[in-house]
């Protein structure tokens, strides 16, 4: 049985205090502060199945929240021209999200549906704990303008950087796995809880928004808290050692949250962020035939410890200049070098990716890889330049192919004081 999350005032929840023993404190930039109860640490660094994260808050949950182990991501096309219907959907979604993230079914607080009608909640998460579920909502560029049309009277409020991402070298994007008017990132420590959340939101959306594509993910490939161990991606290497974590408060402000004044037309996005989604297919069969020497050279780290090839341990800063017999120890085309802040104007990135396996392709190869998710303050400065460089120069690209893509503006959190707040309120009111 789950308890209701305590009244949400400035984020210090009753259960957060009660569970202070194992609590992971998440410092949020603009003074917001959230505590999560760690009921039972599962050892992998996720917070345990009893954990709940409040839906309402200064920022949306699911960004700085310690990365959960499972993902269900969905992109939607809005199928109506009615602004009122879109607003009603965002309100309904927010109410449902608040229920589900608290471990309660959709429609809790309302009378049960009549026996002769279908239940409000689809039911597969009944009796399951909240499992640290977070639901994070974003708006794609086509919500603001599509085919030259100002669909919902918000064209003038489109943030300048919110555009369909450019074509990067070697991209092989499937339109059926790319873009969308709306997106929802559902993360949880139980896949059934994440799938339940997206299924119910999609059901609420029928008639207003239709699912365009979705992606299941497992095995978080990044840590967003120093309390978490660094996980491995399907290449077998630790991924996200240098990831921006919630403990780097000033870097979080610099590289994650949109600040007032960033974009005159889009002050509604203050306290929000941009979500970059990339479905990156990994050619695992050929990777697995590659010598360990080459694998490590391509990554720029050793496989066992995750230490940079320039020496030290996992968290030792790589020395990009240290020379060996035949050039730098961290090769010029190594992933670690090209993604390093010193090569990218000091940029750090908060990544939240997941591994995926979607069966096999027609040739019998695993259709598997990394579903890359990152939250950035300005994609024009903090994502596109780096990805352009990686796509051109990264030696790993021989084993990678980007097959899906999306850029979404992530509005700030819902009103944390008055719990009637809904996602997107600052944009539509």
């Amino acid at each position: 049985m789950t308890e209701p999350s305590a009244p949400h005032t400035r984020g210090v929840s009753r259960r957060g205090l009660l569970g202070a023993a194992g609590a992971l404190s998440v410092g949020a930039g603009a003074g917001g502060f959230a505590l999560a109860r760690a009921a039972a640490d599962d050892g992998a660094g996720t917070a345990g199945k009893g954990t709940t994260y409040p839906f309402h808050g200064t920022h949306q949950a699911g960004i700085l929240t310690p990365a959960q182990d499972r993902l269900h991501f969905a992109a939607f096309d809005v199928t109506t021209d009615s602004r009122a219907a879109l607003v009603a959907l965002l309100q309904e979604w927010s109410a449902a999200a608040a229920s589900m993230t608290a471990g309660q079914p959709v429609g809790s607080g309302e009378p049960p549906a009549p026996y002769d009608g279908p239940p409000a909640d689809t039911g597969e998460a009944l009796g399951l704990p909240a499992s640290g579920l977070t639901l994070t909502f974003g708006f794609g560029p086509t919500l603001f303008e599509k085919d030259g049309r100002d669909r919902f009277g918000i064209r003038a409020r489109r943030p300048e950087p919110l555009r369909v991402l450019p074509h990067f070298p070697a991209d092989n994007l499937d339109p059926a796995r790319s873009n969308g008017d709306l997106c929802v990132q559902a993360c949880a420590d139980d896949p059934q809880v994440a799938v339940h959340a997206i299924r119910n939101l999609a059901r609420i959306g029928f008639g207003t928004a239709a699912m365009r594509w979705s992606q299941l993910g497992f095995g978080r490939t990044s840590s967003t808290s120093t309390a978490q161990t660094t996980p491995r991606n399907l290449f077998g290497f630790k991924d996200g050692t240098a990831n921006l974590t919630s403990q780097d408060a000033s870097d979080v402000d610099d590289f994650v949250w949109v600040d007032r004044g960033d974009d005159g037309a889009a002050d509604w996005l203050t306290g929000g962020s941009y979500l970059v989604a990339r479905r990156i297919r990994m050619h695992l069969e050929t990777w697995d035939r590659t010598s360990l020497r080459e694998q490590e050279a391509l990554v720029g780290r050793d496989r066992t410890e995750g230490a940079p090839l320039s020496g030290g341990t996992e968290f030792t800063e790589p020395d990009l200049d240290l020379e060996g017999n035949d050039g730098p120890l961290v090769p010029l085309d190594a992933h670690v070098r090209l993604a390093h802040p010193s090569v990218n104007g000091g940029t750090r990135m908060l990544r939240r990716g997941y591994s995926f396996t979607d069966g096999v392709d027609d040739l019998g190869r695993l259709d598997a890889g990394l579903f890359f998710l990152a939250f950035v303050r300005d994609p024009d400065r903090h994502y596109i330049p780096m990805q352009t460089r990686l796509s051109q120069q990264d030696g790993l690209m021989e084993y990678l192919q980007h097959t899906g893509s999306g850029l979404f503006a992530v509005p700030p959190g819902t009103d944390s004081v008055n719990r009637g707040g809904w996602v997107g309120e600052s944009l539509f009111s």
Partner: protein
Amino acid sequence: MRLQLVAAACAVALSSTACGLTESNGPSVATDGTVTVTSTDDACELSTDQVGSGNVVFEVTNAGNQVTEFYVYGDDGLRIVGEVENVGPGLTRDLVLRAAPGSYVASCRPGMSGEGIRHGFTVTDSGDDAAIQGVTQAAIDTATDQYADYVRDQASQLVDRTAEFLAAYRSGDDDEARRLFPLARVHWERIETVAESFGDLDPLTDLREADLEPGHKWTGWHRLEKDLWPPAKGYTPLTDAERATYADDLAGNIAILDSRVEDLEFTVDQIGNGSKGLLDEVATGKITGEEDIWSHTDLYDFQANVDGARVAFEGLEPLLEVKDPELAKTIAARFTALQSLLDEHRVGEDGFVSYDTVTTAQRKGLSDAVNALSEPLSRMTGAITL
């Protein structure tokens, strides 16, 4: 689980309208009152004998050893306001009512017989009952009679159109038979959920080749369809004699259907669920192009399913208008939206393009529109019977 606990706790202290689910994260709280009912073999305990008007939830738990029922009657103890039947021992089932202020009689009937164990029950005026109206029996009768007429009419047209189609088919006029095939099937598809309710007729008449079980003989519409739109290779056309046999068989089964619907009567929930069921047929069979895999005339069937669903809805619309006008409006608007999408694929007055020319993106558009309609439609029956 939490909801029940809070609801139960507040039912005890219930004195006015809003049961205080203030801790809920949900939208505006609509629970006006919850009454827990414990039915045992010799007792019927209600957590309160007074509740505010509006939505009232009776959580009926069978704590006895016999199957029980729970009824709420009007103050005359005769008029049934609401009921839950067939509650097995140990089970809990909700009865949701929209109750106007007044006196009522609540009754548990362990063993499902007799007068039951009765208690007086009062619904006080919470100020929340302005919209509560009943539906008259006359309105219900009108709706159910109209629908029964519609089914009979379609069955009768099905007999005639099928006869025309089969005449062309028997005589070897294949072009004419191909023209008439989808037009005859329209009348089947409009009442498909009724036809399917006859479990013996449906497989003889409308089975697709892919659904065949080993050892079963394939007959009916789709057997003739394959003969009229044969695959390029590996198909042996039916002889004239075989054609006659299959045609007689189909005509015979259609005649049986026609006679069976003659005395058929319908209830509101059968009509409502039938309407939703027709759209489920669209969603699983027609959208995918699996129904008419040889002729690709799926859009005729699609339209006919939608026609039937719409007639069922429009018959119930006056009842729904009383109970939930907003839902009625939404359903009507979404029927219109779906129809305008379908109309994009029309050819001539009563025809449609071949479904194999409909692109994946167009099919997704149709599928989205079907989902958009089916979701609110699935709530219609519950809303009316509430």
